[in-house]
């Protein structure tokens, strides 16, 4: 969808999935273009190691169920990943045809096969023979679901504790509908549920059930709680009406009816990660007249994927680099402006990125009707503390091989271990960590058995 095609009459239609998906003919032609490499680099480039040539060959032969199974067996959230993975940096970037013609559209083919399975209501797996051991998984996002699926295949009694009304985590609530419709995430949740995995939704660990009960009652625990809300900007005016948390903002577009609150309004998004892009493109689709992304560094340091950046530009989002907010200005408790300062880049900081330094006397004010904060996510510190495991500012300490925390029966994976140079932020990495955690738990609980 380009800016031109955004509907100002029917805002909710703007949230339909942007990409149409391949037609049968497109999929067949593309699948037959795949060389079916042996020991293919695309497999190496996939964090979950999907056997890509095989699933593509199965599309070509008409074995779509087998194709979906090949994908989902390696990646329990493979339908979501086909839509949100930065494929040009992963599988498609590694395709040997980059050096000959043009790479295979692996992401789109993966979507084609999983869409088929979804449309045809296929259940792809059956639970393993029961081992009589139980595992509690805290958090039903990509990492937790992936671990649950592998553990269920191995024969564990798995219970997922999910604070929200639905499982799926980021895929259900955090990624905009026009990229990843909820139905896709729900289908992946169903695949896991169908293996007798119990998913206790609306159950917040620490409130609805005690940490002690979980640690005591299960043979092992996996912490896959992800990250929390957007932290405070630390500037005056954050309490004003019209100031939003980007995570909550996106979630509302996926859980509540679309409103015209932002129709014709001016929106400023603070931050330049993928969530900032999501907040900005959501604002465009909610009918905002002007959407700016304010970032205190430059394009170089931005963490959003290239394709996300391109997507936002196509949507007409303005990028203001080297711009930091210093104050939100209110009128009658409502935000009306944002005072900013220009920045310049100084020496690299701890994370290797050049630090922004304010330029004196560069203050200026932007007129805005809404401000969306997207400067990262805070951690569920209290919950992590309650498990009495080591962490570094909310980044849970793990053995990088086993995902084991400082408590031998508690493991952790996904965003809760991401940060401070540890882990990866991608959904596909969370899925892989979930699998690896499951194998480590298996190793711990049934050490005599062969691991997968």
């Amino acid at each position, binding site marked *: 969808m380009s800016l031109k095609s955004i509907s100002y009459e029917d805002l909710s239609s703007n949230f339909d999935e942007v990409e149409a998906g391949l*037609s049968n*003919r497109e999929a067949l032609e593309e699948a037959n273009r795949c060389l079916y490499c042996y020991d293919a680099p695309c497999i190496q480039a996939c964090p979950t190691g999907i056997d890509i040539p095989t699933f593509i060959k*199965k599309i070509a032969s008409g*074995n779509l169920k087998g194709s979906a199974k090949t994908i989902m067996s390696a990646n329990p959230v493979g339908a979501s990943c086909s839509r949100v993975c930065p494929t040009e940096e992963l599988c498609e970037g590694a395709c040997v045809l980059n050096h000959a013609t043009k790479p295979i559209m692996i992401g789109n083919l993966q979507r084609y096969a999983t869409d088929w399975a979804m449309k045809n209501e296929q259940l792809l797996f059956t639970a393993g023979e029961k081992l009589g051991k139980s595992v509690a998984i805290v958090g039903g996002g990509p990492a937790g679901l992936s671990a649950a699926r592998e553990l269920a295949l191995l024969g564990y009694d798995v219970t997922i504790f999910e604070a929200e009304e639905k499982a799926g985590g980021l895929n259900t609530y955090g990624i905009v509908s026009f990229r990843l419709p909820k139905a896709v995430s729900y289908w992946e949740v169903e695949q896991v549920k169908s293996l007798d995995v119990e998913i206790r939704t609306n159950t917040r660990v620490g409130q609805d059930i005690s940490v002690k009960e979980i640690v005591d009652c299960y043979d092992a625990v996996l912490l896959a709680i992800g990250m929390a809300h957007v932290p405070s900007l630390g500037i005056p005016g954050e309490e004003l009406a019209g100031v939003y948390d980007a995570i909550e903002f996106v979630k509302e577009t996926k859980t509540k009816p679309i409103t015209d609150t932002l129709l014709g309004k001016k929106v400023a998004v603070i931050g330049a990660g993928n969530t900032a892009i999501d907040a900005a493109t959501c604002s465009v689709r909610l009918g905002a007249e002007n959407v700016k992304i304010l970032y205190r560094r430059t394009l170089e340091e931005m963490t959003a994927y290239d394709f996300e950046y391109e997507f936002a530009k196509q949507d007409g989002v303005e990028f203001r680099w080297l711009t930091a907010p210093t104050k939100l200005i209110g009128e009658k408790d409502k935000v009306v402006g944002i005072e900013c300062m220009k920045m310049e880049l100084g020496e690299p900081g701890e994370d290797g990125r050049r630090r922004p330094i304010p330029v004196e006397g560069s203050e200026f004010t932007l007129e805005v009707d809404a401000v969306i904060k997207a400067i990262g996510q805070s951690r569920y510190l209290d919950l992590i503390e309650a498990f009495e495991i080591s962490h570094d500012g909310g980044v849970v300490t793990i053995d990088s091989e086993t995902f084991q925390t400082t408590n031998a029966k508690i493991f952790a994976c996904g965003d809760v271990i991401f940060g401070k140079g540890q882990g990866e932020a991608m959904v596909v990495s969370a899925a892989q960590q979930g699998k690896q955690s499951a194998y480590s738990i298996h190793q711990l609980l049934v050490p005599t058995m062969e691991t997968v």
Partner: protein
Amino acid sequence: MADLSINLAGIKSPNPFWLASAPPTNSGYQVQRAFEAGWGGAVWKTLGEPIINTSSRFAAISFNGQRVAGFNNIELITDRPLEVNLKEIYETKKRFPNHAIIASLMVEPQQEKWHEIVKKVEDVGVDGLELNFGCPHGMAERGMGAASGQVPALVEKQTYWVKEMAQTPVIVKLTPNITDITATAEAAVQGGADAISMINTINSLAGVDIHSWNTIPHVAGKGAHGGYCGPAVKPIALHMVGECARNPRINIPISGIGGVSNWENAIEFMLMGATGVQVCTAAMHHGFRIVEDMIEGLNNYLDEKGIASVNDLVGKAVHKYSDWGDLDLNYKVVARINNDVCINCNKCHIACEDTSHQCIDMLKDGEGNPILRVREEDCVGCNLCSIVCPVDGAIDMVELPNEFPPMTWNERQAAIGALACAVDTVK
């Protein structure tokens, strides 16, 4: 999970996918790799008096950029000593007792030669024998292979000699390089064969290099005809399997060979009467791993159709394969073009206009947009437009209600004959 196991004339295998006697089954190492990958059986590269092979042996046809649409080879039978092959067959069978190993054999058309080799291979534990009466090149110049297989009397006699000695089932592999394959198939039945397999490769010359004027492939600037196989030959093979399957005098199982590249092709061969299939070119193009999709695709197909065993497919389409004279002349289909799907390439129009029945008009709709429309009264239902159409769903071939009761050519001729007789009687 459907039952994929088959029993072809007493040769059992866990699935119907066998590797054909060819380069992929040249050694124990290869056959064991194939079994590890999932192949149900393997017909060992033909054993006989070791020969010398040429360097440069294969060629393939690319069609519009699609590689290996057809494949051509001038390789002969095994070039390794018989004892080495026998040792490896023994070891492979020991490691994979539930997989089928069939020894392909070719010797000079003499009774004692056949007796001798049959005894040797059966002693190492093969599950069956396949007599190579099909190799079209090289060996045929020495009076073996297709040279034997093109003469029904020789097929019958050699099969008989083998059956005199054989304890295991005997499959006779037939050459397609003959006008009517049922003649040699019947000869095999007469000789006592337990099964037949078809087709071996078709005489071919893959190409001529237009710059060097060498044949493709060439050996030091000279070429000889080879054997053609791969996806391009599938229709020829399917026809021959069907002709044998529907012939009441050929009442033994068929192992289908010729361009089988995936599970769908295998189903086609089985529906047309094959008990199992043999594959070579697809494995040579992609490796043994292709069998995973073949097995899974076949299984998913059977599950989806609610068919418990793959054996329930065998021959199910044979009764639908008949003589031209038995086709209903009053059956009518016509083409209908869906202009909402059509992309206006006009390929159907020009194909019909120049080469068929001039019944697709290029028109404009009310708004001046180009549309295509079939004049159904002039359409003969030839299918050409739907064949050349590049878009799925743009052209439907639609059945029209029969204006007259069904009437075949044979029925028509019989009716006219009867009428003539009646007229004669009146006279």
